[in-house]
């Protein structure tokens, strides 16, 4: 009893730890086990050790898809980290400083979060479709009829369209969170800065950003994880095959295609081994995400604890 008493944090961590371990972590371990088997999903499993991993990296049909999908996932992360994250900080600062109409802006920027993903895609059709889209009507009205296009699906834009949808629907999340973090900066710090006579943007860079540094690093890690596990928009825009020439394919979609889609056009033995290979891909994805997240967590915490 006294051992527990001396560790009060256990009482706080334990309930969440148990629920989380049971429904979020335990299934992962049981899935990892599947990746060591040859399994089509409903028949008998055959234990094959690390054969699936070897095949994933040695079968060119699979490896090419892996490279392509991974490249797209990394592109999404890079764009999110370099464009969306700064935009979120910028928007949060404007709202924090109570720009006129800030409540309206906040609601509007966050609002795509309220809309279910298939509906967002459907709204995209209504607004950007080549024939009945409003946007194209506007272009025609301005005499730019030549420019009308079905903007949602232009193949040569591929993954960038996916990114735009992700950015539009997700920008509010980080923004709301940065806003919360800014609101926790103590009054003394801000007042000191004001006495200093720093300009509006000077305060942003010299006071606000350093104050919420940890939050930014945390959001960067989350951005990375979300980008690498992105699925919805690619699936809706390109189907299980990842679009023409796999132009919108991402890691999670690659895993999904092999596990649950019809997939033997990739060659190899994936049809008789759909779940085995699919799980293997998910495990590789997990490893890639985990190792980088591990580095990020340790680097950022080392720094903040100084």
């Amino acid at each position, binding site marked *: 009893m006294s051992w527990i008493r001396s*560790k009060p944090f256990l009482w706080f961590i334990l309930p969440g730890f148990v629920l989380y371990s049971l429904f*979020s972590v335990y299934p992962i371990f049981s899935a990892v086990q599947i990746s060591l088997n040859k399994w089509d999903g409903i028949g008998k499993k055959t234990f094959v050790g690390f054969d699936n991993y070897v095949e994933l990296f040695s079968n060119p049909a699979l490896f090419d898809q892996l490279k392509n999908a991974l490249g797209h996932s990394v592109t999404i992360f890079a764009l999110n980290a370099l464009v969306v994250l700064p935009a979120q900080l910028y928007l949060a600062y404007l709202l924090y*400083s109570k720009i006129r109409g800030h409540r309206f802006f906040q609601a509007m920027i966050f609002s795509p979060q309220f809309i279910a993903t298939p509906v967002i895609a459907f709204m995209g059709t209504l607004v950007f479709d080549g024939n009945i889209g409003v946007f194209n009507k506007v272009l025609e009205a301005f005499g730019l009829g030549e420019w009308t296009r079905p903007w949602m699906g232009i193949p040569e834009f591929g993954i960038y369209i996916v990114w735009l949808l992700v950015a539009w629907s997700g920008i509010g999340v980080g923004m709301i969170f940065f806003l919360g*973090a800014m609101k926790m900066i103590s009054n003394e710090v801000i*007042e000191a800065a004001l006495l200093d006579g720093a300009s509006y943007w000077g305060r942003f860079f010299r006071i606000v950003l350093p104050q919420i540094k940890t939050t930014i690093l945390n959001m960067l890690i989350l951005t990375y994880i979300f980008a690498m596990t992105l699925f919805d928009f690619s699936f809706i825009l390109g189907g299980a095959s990842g679009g023409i020439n796999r132009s919108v394919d991402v890691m999670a979609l690659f895993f999904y295609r092999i596990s649950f889609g019809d997939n033997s056009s990739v060659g190899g033995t994936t049809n008789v081994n759909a779940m085995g290979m699919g799980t293997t891909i998910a495990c590789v994805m997990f490893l890639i995400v985990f190792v980088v997240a591990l580095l990020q967590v340790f680097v950022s915490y080392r720094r903040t604890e100084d």
Partner: protein
Amino acid sequence: MKTILKKKTPISAAILWVYSLFTLFVLVYMTYQAFRPKKDLLSATFAFPKHLGFGNFRKLFVDAGFFTYLFNSALILFGALFLVVMLSTMVAYGIGKFNFKFKSGILLYFLIGLMFPVQLGIVPIFLLIRDLGLLNNQLSVVLVLASGLSMPVFLLTTFFAKLPNDLYESAKIDGAGEWTTFIRVMFPLASPVTFSVCIIMSMQIWNQFFVPLIFLQSEAKKTIPLMIMKFTNNVLYNMDMAMVGSVMATVPLLILFFFFSGRIVEGVATGGVKG
């Protein structure tokens, strides 16, 4: 003091207006289409509206049983949100405020849940839920969604770590136990961030599709995203219902958010910082 922060930023304001008005336009356009009968929607999508009416809404409320789905969604939302916020603030407080070995390790452990596709781990969860006898019961979805603690724990931990220690000490000197200190002193202090977490998590729970699909089978237990999917599966055939369903799943929430969010955030923020 915050008024002094103001500055005229015309370019930023313009950007915000363009961006927000675009989003507003999309929402208003969707709402407008929801008032049109199916025939007009299909063959005169862009023509001047001839018939506007509440016919689609009547169909949604009466024939499609919208309120059953709404009730289930609300039940799951409040159940899961309560658990998520309660458990994640507790965990974050435990990790952030106390010193012990493997802190970063535990934090990382709580991140793992985000890195693996839920579709793959669903069968073990399914068996677990079956053994608990919770199949086709909303509680199953509440439990599974409430276990998604990764993001809130990760985001909240640093805030509890940063909260001033003197408040904690003085509460202890006053003779308050750990639990009281947490609920009465620390929890309110972190409320601006907790509130952000609340909003983000409630949207994730509200739009959750896959988990209810697997665990809720009968129509009387299904949630709003499943109802919307029923209409978007054959989107043109059910276009009137897809429109009005999306509007009813989105716009009321948004209006609530617009009118109350400002006040709630202000309330907790000022109350909290003054401590």
